[in-house]
């Protein structure tokens, strides 16, 4: 099997690991959310790319068309995208509130302030 046959999975996995790395390695709360977003997006690719059949069309019955792509993963991922948007919006809202409460969005500075408070 040619390694390039699986290029869609390679790309998805690279994005997945990149996103996860950003979440873990960055101390800035907004950057963490950016990483989280990349991480979630990679999963959309894992779902969408196998469902596309080369030469297949949209699953609407029409004369002369015999090969259809699978619509179900697209619908699932539409839902997952909405969930992702909601998560990021809520995360950013929390970051705004954290900034108002602490005056910073750097994880280590927040941690230091909490240690002082105790």
């Amino acid at each position, binding site marked *: 099997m040619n390694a390039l046959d699986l290029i869609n999975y390679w790309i998805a996995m690279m994005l997945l690991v990149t996103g*996860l790395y950003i*979440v873990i390695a960055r101390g800035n*709360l907004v950057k*963490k959310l950016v990483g*989280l977003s990349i*991480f*979630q997006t990679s*999963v959309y690719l*894992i*779902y969408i790319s*196998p469902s596309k059949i080369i030469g297949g069309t949209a699953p609407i019955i029409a004369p002369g068309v015999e090969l259809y792509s699978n619509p*179900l*993963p697209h619908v*699932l991922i539409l*839902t*997952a995208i909405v*969930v992702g948007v*909601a*998560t990021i919006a*809520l*995360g950013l809202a*929390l*970051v705004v*509130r*954290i900034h108002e*409460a*602490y005056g910073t969005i750097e994880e280590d500075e*927040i941690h230091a302030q*909490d240690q002082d408070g105790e």
Partner: protein
Amino acid sequence: MIESNLPALQVVLPLVAAPLCVLLRRGSLAWLVTWSATWATAAISIAILLRVLDAGTISYTFGGWEPPWGIEYRVDIVNAFVLVLVSVIGAIIVPYARRSVGAEIRSEQHYLFWAAYLLCLTGLLGVAITGDAFNVFVFLEISSLATYILIACGQDRRALVASYQYLIMGTIGATFIVIGIGLLYLMTGTLNLADMAQRLSTMPLHRPQLAALAFLTVGISLKLALFPLHLWLPNAYAYAPSVSTAFLSATATKVAVYLLLRFSYSVFGQSHVIENISVEAVILALSVAAIFTASLVAIFQDDVKRMFAYSSVAQIGYITLGISLANQNGLTGGIVHMFNHAVAKGAIFMLLGCVALQIGQPLMAQMAGLAKRMPMTAAGLVVGGLSLIGVPGTVGFISKWYLVVAAIEKGWWWLAALVLISSMLAAIYVWRLIEVCYFREPSPELEAAGEAPLSMLIPAWVLVIGCIYFGLDATMTAGTAASAAQSLLEATR
């Protein structure tokens, strides 16, 4: 008509009530809506359990699409038990919550709090009831997003950071679960859990199945706070409003445990995957580690709520321990401990909410002399604490009994000994609290405080009495758990 639609109503009812709360915009009206919706939901769940006990598995199809193509709600005895647990606790907390929410949350946000509470309940019930893999993820995220809001409502600014951390870790967990479900879908071509299990049983082993099991196990473990993925839990529980803590500690992790049961027993139970890797050995080791580390850390906590949050991590360890034993008694112990821990921890966090109403969130030193000023609250805390230790006559004893018997059946005396030794650790942190509450002079904060209002004490004491009642007469809980365990084990090869 109502009877045939019960499984749909179980989820739809709290889901309708949530936007109603937003439309009404008045805190007290929203509370009334929540009150009626949650009690009706609890009644429905009990009706469903009775029907399942009577007539076996219920299947409900959405939109007239037959499974496995359409979304199916499938209730067997395992999730009927979880549904009752979640909705009954959800209902008992609401009357209690009126005063507590009034004191801890700004009044213009009350209706939004109730909307989030109902959405969280909807999500948890949805995860428990659905028979469709992707639907599990959607409901899981509904409940999680609502949970982040419930936690962020806390007065302390650390609640915001705790909620943010939970959001990051919870989303990673949920995304892992989606990856696992996606891989399973690619391998089997179906999303219906029952259909998936059947197709997996006839398939030869492929590596994506192993990957799917791994992703699902890690993702679910993040959600249920299995050691060492529990880091979000202590802060989230410690700084959330009292009502949120009581509700979440009693229900949210239990639903995640149910997911673990569903995937590892029902879906993968007959496949070749389970034979090839020993998930249960990993979970067993992590459970024992959870029980010991979390109990040890709990002993040194100064904040009372945080102490019991760590204790939750340890108690979840007992549940997963039962699951990993994978025999009749072990599984019964794990399932019954879901219920028992929910009742005991729910009671404890509700009573701590009573203390918080009088003096704010208590540190250990501020609890001094609690028994003199708030005798009912202190007595309830003692009963709850004894349940955590597993003293005979309380619910904790029942579950530990099953766990120890299961360990001995397997010939693992060391494990039985470890369970007993770990109970000593629980005894240490509970005794610390009892000593402070009963044998010290009242702290300056408590000097002027009186007993909490009855509207809060009665619901809390309902759970406290539950701790004793179900500890003395376990036929109902342990009996249901035993048949649930049996049905899960039958599905495995």
